[in-house]
């Protein structure tokens, strides 16, 4: 078993190494076969491990494997060791399962790209680091995965590196994530200082003995890391720009897996968060703000991938809402269903872009329903799932979050509900503008339009099925289900339950809320239908927008604000350091002090115009003479 667990991350690493070392010579088919194969075997292994866990008694559901000592010095120790429990096991299934589908899809999507082999090697490297992130049994190993996926994200956003804008987007993603990572790193150090250990197990067991305000500080610092990686306010602006990467990357990294790292981290540390009302409150507020804010931006975007990107930011916010009210397993549930339907939506968007020869503007789409039937139908499944129409996956998971928010506070519920309704609106806006109405693409483009190849459509279909039925893994008791996922995850969250009391709703209240959400959602879809299908409205061109529309369209000018208050001052300060403090200040003093000496030394310099060889020779000889002379003497 230990060996199998170790193999799960090692196989994609192996795939990366093999492809990277031979990327110039390797035949494309071989590279993608290796890459897909490695992830597929990892998936099979993840299934095996998952089944093994299921057959164990509930309180023993965890495997731990130590591979080798990594850093071991001065009282600090971090091993390369893995922990597979229900939480990481679920992530393993999603990373390798959805990851495999996206690898498969990439075969078709990237087939004529010159960087084909490089692409697959990066994807495998990403899967390796992502697996490390969720499998590591200590904070530092999680940090390795955390930064490693950040690296892969950087490499893949800037995959088409000839484009300077893409490179800037990649830099932005990396640097912004680094800001979060500093918080995380300091958090880890603070954990080490207080617990003398960075292993999860020891930290969670001893958490009660540490001062609560320190625990709060740790939890908040860790959450700063999550803000970066999971694109929450104020560190979210990199994610929309990250859409510069090839679409499968957006699906895998920037929707289904990497951006959920922050969610994993908070869920993993549920004990610490449950002990700190302040930290939970922060998570809740940031989640709510992000969910709503990003949803409003998504309403006004016309780039198909940008809409999905803001949607991802918003949905992640919703998941943090769930974590913030202490409903950890509901958050993980939505993370899982979101991985299915958002990966599906991105891949569907990729299929559309692919068919239209690279077009991403929904104002230039329309009427694609009959040209791309598979994409259309699967995309519809995704849109219904994210909108929370029963019985699609998003219905169950989103509903759980809303119910928990309601139990916590009416304000939280109101905001989360509003964000959900906006989600339904912008998703159907996107859907109708893309697939309905009359085609707005040029004849040239419509002439070349084609449904995607099998390697692309099969993953779409599989993900569509998952988006339809995925919710059944956790049907709430109010609907007569058994909440299987909650049960499965309960050993991970059990320690929190003693600390944090979760409010539970009456089944009748819960059913009432469900009904309300579904009715409101249907009404919203109706509005979108009348606007974009019946009314044939198309979003206006940039120049004709009014003040508020303009602000939303321009994402509230947040990028420009950051530029003005952070980037520009940093460069200004650096220039002042360089030109004034350095040259005139410090070096000026040095030169003034040394001025006299330098003048005097000009004389000394005159002595050094002879043969350099002679000098060295003389020097060596004199050293030897000196040594021998004194020794004899």
């Amino acid at each position, binding site marked *: 078993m230990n060996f199998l667990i170790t193999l799960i991350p090692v196989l994609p690493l192996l795939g990366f190494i093999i492809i990277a070392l031979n990327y*110039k010579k390797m035949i494309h088919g071989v590279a993608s076969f290796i890459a897909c194969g490695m992830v597929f075997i990892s998936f099979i292994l993840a299934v095996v491990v998952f089944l093994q866990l299921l057959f164990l008694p509930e309180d023993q559901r965890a495997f731990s494997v130590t591979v*080798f*000592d*990594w*850093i*071991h*010095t*001065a*009282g*600090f120790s971090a091993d390369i060791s893995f922990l597979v429990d229900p939480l990481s096991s679920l992530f393993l299934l999603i990373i390798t399962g959805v990851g495999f589908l996206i690898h498969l899809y990439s075969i078709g999507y990237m087939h004529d790209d010159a960087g084909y082999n490089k692409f697959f090697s990066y994807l495998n490297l990403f899967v390796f680091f992502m697996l490390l992130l969720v499998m590591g049994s200590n904070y530092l190993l999680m*940090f*390795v995965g955390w*930064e*490693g996926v950040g*690296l892969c994200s950087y490499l893949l956003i*800037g995959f088409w*590196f*000839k484009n*300077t804008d893409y*490179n*800037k987007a990649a*830099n932005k993603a*990396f*640097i912004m994530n*680094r*800001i979060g*990572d*500093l918080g995380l*790193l*300091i958090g880890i*150090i603070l954990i080490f*200082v207080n617990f003398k250990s960075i292993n999860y197990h020891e930290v969670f067991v001893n958490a009660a003995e540490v001062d609560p305000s320190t625990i709060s500080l740790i939890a908040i610092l860790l959450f700063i890391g999550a803000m970066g990686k999971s694109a929450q306010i104020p560190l979210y602006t990199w994610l929309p720009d990250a859409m510069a990467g090839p679409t499968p990357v957006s699906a895998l990294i920037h929707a289904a897996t990497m951006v959920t790292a922050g969610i994993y981290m908070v869920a993993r540390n549920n004990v610490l968060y449950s002990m700190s009302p302040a930290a939970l409150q922060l998570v809740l507020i940031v989640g709510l703000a992000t969910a709503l804010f990003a949803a409003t931006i998504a309403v006004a975007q016309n780039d198909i991938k940008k809409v999905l990107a803001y949607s991802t930011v918003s949905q992640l916010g919703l998941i943090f809402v769930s974590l913030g009210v202490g409903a950890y397993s509901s958050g993980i549930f939505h993370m899982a269903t979101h991985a299915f339907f958002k990966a599906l939506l991105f891949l569907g968007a990729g299929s559309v872009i692919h068919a239209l020869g690279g077009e991403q503007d929904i104002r230039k789409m329309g009427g694609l329903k009959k040209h791309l039937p598979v994409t259309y139908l699967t995309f519809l499944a995704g849109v219904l799932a994210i909108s929370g129409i029963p019985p699609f996956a998003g219905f169950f998971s989103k509903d759980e979050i809303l119910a928990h928010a309601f139990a916590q506070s009416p304000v939280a519920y109101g905001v989360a509900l509003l964000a959900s309704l906006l989600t339904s609106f912008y998703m159907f806006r996107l859907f109708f503008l893309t697939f309905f109405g009359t085609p707005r693409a040029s004849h040239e483009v419509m002439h070349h339009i084609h449904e995607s190849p099998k390697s692309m459509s099969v993953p779409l279909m599989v993900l569509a099925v998952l988006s339809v039925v995925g919710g059944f893994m956790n049907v709430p008791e109010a609907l007569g289900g058994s909440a299987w996922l909650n049960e499965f995850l309960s050993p991970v969250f059990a320690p929190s339950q003693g600390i944090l009391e979760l409010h539970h709703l009456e089944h009748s209240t819960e059913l009432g809320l469900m009904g309300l959400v579904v009715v409101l959602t249907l009404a919203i879809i109706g509005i979108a239908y009348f606007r974009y299908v019946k009314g044939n409205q198309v979003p206006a061109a940039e120049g004709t927008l009014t003040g508020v529309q303009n602000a939303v369209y321009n994402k509230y000018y947040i990028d420009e604000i950051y530029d003005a208050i952070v980037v520009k001052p*940093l460069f200004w*300060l*650096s*220039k002042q*350091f*360089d030109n004034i403090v*350095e040259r005139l200040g*410090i070096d000026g003093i*040095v030169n003034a002090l*040394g001025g006299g*000496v*330098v003048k005097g*030394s000009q004389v000394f*310099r005159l002595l*050094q115009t002879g043969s*350099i*060889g002679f*000098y*060295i*020779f003389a*020097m*060596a*000889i004199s050293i*030897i003479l000196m*040594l021998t002379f*004194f*020794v004899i*003497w």
Partner: protein
Amino acid sequence: MLLFILLWPLLASLVLFAFKPKQAWVIAFIATAVELVASLVLVIGFDKNASATAAIDLPWITSLGVNFALGVDGISLLLVLLTTVLVPFIVLSAAKHSYTPSFYGLVLMMQMALIGVFTAMDGFLFYLFWEIALIPIYFICLIWGGEDRGRITLKFFIYTLAGSLFMLVALIYLYFQTPGAHSFAIQALYEAGRALPPGEQSLVFWGLFIAFAIKMPVFPFHTWQPDTYSVAPSQGTMLLSGIMLKMGLYGVIRWLIPVVPAGVQEWGLTAVILSVIGILYGSCIAIVQKDFKRLIAYSSIAHVGLISAGIFTLSSIGMQGALIQMLSHGILVFGLFYGIDIIETRVKTRNLAGLGGIRNVAPTFSAVFTIIMLGTVALPFTSGFVGEFLLINSVFQYRAILGVVAGLTIILGAVYMLRSFQQAMLGETNTTTAGFADLTGHEKLVLFPIVILVVAIGIYPDPLLSISESAVSNLLLIVQDFSASAK
């Protein structure tokens, strides 16, 4: 063995003059390779628990109490290893520049002096090697340097020499405090220093610290460095930044902290603050540099600042982090400066604005450079991460706020490295870079081992960390004993 390691480069440098340039290069490489093997033998036979006592202790200038005393403990050994590993690479990297035999002679002489500095167990001998080390590098920069080299190398020479004079005065002062007929032996100086009242320890502290601070360099003693690094020939810059600046750091560990523990306790916070300022200051200035080499020079100030801050926390985690980071930094700056050397010899410029698109035409070079860059920004599983994590950890434990400020290096480092990488390597090619050739077999031979080291140390640093573990705890024991007895 130790004596052989010290004297072998010196002997080799004499033999070199009998050869033609091309042959001299080969001989120099063979000599440094032999040196590397010898040092590896030393490492294998090394007893990790050995304390820093002189393995060789010959009476030398008996009238002055000077002994020819050499010895290694885990700390010295790591720095010897850094020297013997890097110098063969530096020689190899010089192939394209048709240097005369005297160049290689100077490099070897430099190696001898560096080994001497890292192994001297006598104050006078230490000072002697310290000064000898300056001479070859001065000539290397003066003769093979770039524009305006005369003025800049002179400034470098005088600045560092002036710093050393402070050290000389401090050492002589200590010498006269030793009992009886006076002695420069390390233990005697240790005891003399510790016996001083705190006020005098502070004076000695500053004497020694200024010398070391200039060598590293620590803010605000650094202004010779960017000019010198920029103007020096690439191999000179590699020697300076890869190895020579570690003399200053080593000096603090061996010849400052144990000598005047009370002075260090008094002024340690000041030193840490200066170091941390250097991190921010160096990083910020690096961001706005246009010359790639100068950018790396400033980044080096930032990295050294972190190392020095870690050392002055007087904690074992800081010391261990500093030592592993010294090795890592040596390897990484060698890689960076060699990369820049390759760019400069190919396209005759290292101005970032004139570069771009190299990745299109030289993918292998770009991949190698990427890994070295990742090491520099301390990505986990590269050598840079291990040290940086331990160092930030130590500074945070020392003063939390300083730890956070020092931690900004992980953000700022990413800013200047990614930006410069993008400007040089990414985007479309231009007329300058269109014909940029990918790595030659020879260049691969130099860079591939470097890249392997960067990753290997990042994944499995334990063997290196364990070499210095007990030496570090012995050293800190001295400081703790001292403060215990002071109370």
